[in-house]
């Protein structure tokens, strides 16, 4: 720094000091310029000549504004104002123009120059060429932006499960990153009939610009991409030896976007098959770089993973839909013979007087009923899984419903007495009556089933602020803490009770039904001390 050198020059006599000073100024890499308060240049060192390309004699006496770009002329006013006030301007980053008209990024430090009496008579100006720093900064900025874009596009597409919504952001992002005038993503998809068809997305050009052209043909130029042989990057495609000799178009067909710079990156599936390609064009030559190639390749591989995911998802969904369809069909088919069996058994029950025969019929009918419930549960589960369980809300009195359900157990469950108690007032609820009935039945049936040694079940209804709670308590075998966590999951059954039958769907269904009513289901239990299941839901249907 010149300032430090001046201090160490302190031991020299004044005359020598000046010589040292001027040597330092002359040898500085930076431009060191002085000017008077009118802005006229009064000194000009070698550094200034090197940076601004003017020789000293060309600029001495001229106004400093010859270095300032037109749009920045007002800067000089501010600088002079500061200098007049005796203030320094430090590391001011700006742009100046050289003799040949080049624009330079520079950093300026300007200090007032005082005469022997301390009056401000001018300014000294040190200008450093920071074009390279700025360039590097811009590069880093650009690099960061690209990384951000890369990151954004990969997180955007990784969660998507349909093809088009993956192709579009990938096309847009890669077109932007490469600076292409237009980009396209051609992708081979397979439809349900197993036929392959071409999907494509476009960025930077209207869809019609591509529609006229049809799919890229398997010409030598496109072949490399569609055969997955690698990236094709051409500075001027019209000069490529492969270009212009292929019928029917012999070059780009009429109406084709003007492509000179050309970049094509194959998109391969995880298994290595080429599933498509990304194509970029620009009307100027030499636009695409190796870096662009790398960036697009990275995005292409992420796109292929995302596309693979969406293919797998579609496959799983198709299978799952088939399963639901099958269960719906199977349950319908199973119920048809059940209808006849149950009908004739009931007719017989009315006609037969013999007690033993009546007992057999009762037992048979009970089993038919059970069979029907299993089929219904199976059907319900498939509906819930497919998100197609439709609730049919209506206004009804839940106390009446509970009494009605409990009444049926007086005949069907002779082993247990079901006690009922209601707390509060106003038992009108807006809910799916049949589904709530199903839940209550499930809880009471379970309570009886899992308390073979007991003979009592307690049902309690409570109404509170805008919600109702139904509790069903038994004195049965109970549940451990670990079991309580799993009890509402599908196909779960309390272990060690293999002789108690069931599919393990009841509580799963009940819980789902209550959830669909915006309610919650809970269990309180201890092994050997019975279990209490209860559910709460808003008595008025909440708008979805």
């Amino acid at each position, binding site marked *: 720094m010149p300032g430090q050198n001046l201090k160490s020059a302190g031991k020299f006599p004044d005359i020598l000091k000046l010589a040292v000073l001027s040597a330092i100024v002359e040898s500085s890499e930076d431009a060191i310029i002085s000017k008077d308060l009118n802005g006229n240049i009064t000194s000009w060192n070698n550094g200034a000549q090197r940076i601004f390309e003017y020789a000293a004699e060309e600029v001495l006496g001229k106004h400093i504004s010859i270095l300032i770009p037109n749009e920045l002329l007002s800067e000089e006013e501010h600088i002079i104002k500061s200098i007049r006030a005796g203030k320094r301007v430090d590391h001011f980053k700006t742009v100046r123009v050289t003799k040949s008209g080049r624009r330079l990024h520079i950093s300026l430090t300007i200090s007032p120059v005082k005469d022997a009496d301390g009056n401000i008579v001018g300014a000294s100006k040190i200008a450093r060429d920071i074009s390279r720093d700025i360039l590097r900064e811009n590069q880093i900025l650009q690099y960061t932006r690209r990384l951000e874009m890369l990151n954004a596009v990969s997180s955007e597409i990784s969660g998507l499960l349909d093809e088009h919504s993956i192709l579009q952001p990938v096309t847009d992002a890669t077109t932007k990153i490469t600076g292409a005038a237009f980009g396209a993503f051609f992708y081979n998809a397979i439809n349900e009939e197993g036929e392959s068809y071409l999907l494509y997305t476009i960025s930077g050009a209207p869809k019609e610009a591509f529609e006229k052209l049809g799919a890229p043909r398997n010409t030598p130029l496109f072949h490399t991409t569609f055969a997955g042989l690698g990236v094709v990057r051409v500075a001027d495609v019209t000069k490529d030896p492969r270009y212009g000799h292929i019928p029917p178009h012999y070059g780009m067909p009429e109406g084709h976007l003007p492509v000179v710079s050309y970049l094509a990156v194959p998109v391969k599936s995880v298994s290595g098959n080429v599933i498509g390609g990304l194509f970029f064009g620009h009307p100027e030559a030499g636009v695409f770089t190796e870096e662009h190639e790398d960036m697009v390749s990275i995005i292409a591989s992420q796109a292929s993973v995302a596309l693979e995911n969406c293919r797998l998802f579609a496959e799983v969904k198709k299978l799952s839909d088939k399963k639901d369809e099958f269960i719906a069909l199977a349950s*319908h088919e199973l119920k*048809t013979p059940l209808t*006849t*069996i149950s009908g004739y058994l*009931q007719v017989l029950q009315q006609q037969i007087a013999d007690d033993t025969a009546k007992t057999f019929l009762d037992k048979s009918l009970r089993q*038919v009923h059970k069979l029907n419930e299993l089929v219904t549960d199976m059907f319900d589960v498939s509906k819930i899984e497919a998100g197609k369980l439709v609730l049919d809300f209506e206004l009804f009195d839940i106390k009446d419903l509970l009494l009605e359900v409990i009444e049926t157990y007086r005949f069907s469950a002779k082993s247990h007495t079901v006690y009922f108690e209601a707390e509060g007032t106003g038992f009108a609820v807006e809910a799916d009556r049949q589904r709530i009935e199903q839940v209550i039945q499930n809880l009471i049936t379970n309570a009886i089933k899992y308390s073979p040694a007991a003979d009592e079940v307690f049902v309690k209804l409570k109404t509170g602020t805008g919600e109702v709670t139904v509790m069903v308590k038994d004195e049965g075998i109970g549940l451990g803490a670990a079991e309580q966590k799993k009890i509402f999951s599908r196909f779960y059954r309390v272990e060690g009770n293999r002789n108690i039958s069931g599919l393990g769907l009841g509580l799963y269904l009940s819980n789902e039904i209550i959830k669909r009513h915006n309610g919650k289901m809970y269990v309180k239990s201890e092994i050997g001390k019975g279990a209490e299941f209860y559910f709460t839901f808003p008595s008025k249907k909440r708008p979805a």
Partner: protein
Amino acid sequence: MKKTIYLVEDDEDIRDMLGLILNRSYHVVPCENLKEFNTQMNQSLPDLVIMDIMLPDGNGDEAGLALQHNAVTKDIPVLFMSANMRFELANPLNKHSFIGKPFDIKFFQQKVNHMISLQ
């Protein structure tokens, strides 16, 4: 004179079973499919229609809706029955005249009696 019921059901055993239950009180005309049902409708109108939903030549639910939209037939009550769920009905208003298979025959008889008596 016995009142007339058109029973549209493609399963022969269910048709016979329901016929057995209803024959004592009603004149039951069994129809295997919608084509037969339409032929019957063109000859004379019943007092009640019992309509299965999944039929080989169409959807009983839609056929029921068509009856409701026809000035001549709109007052004929229709009792829908299906092994499928009630929410699969095209017209939610029909849920009160729906019965799920299999059913309690006493309940079924009550339902039929009730719907016919409203005629």
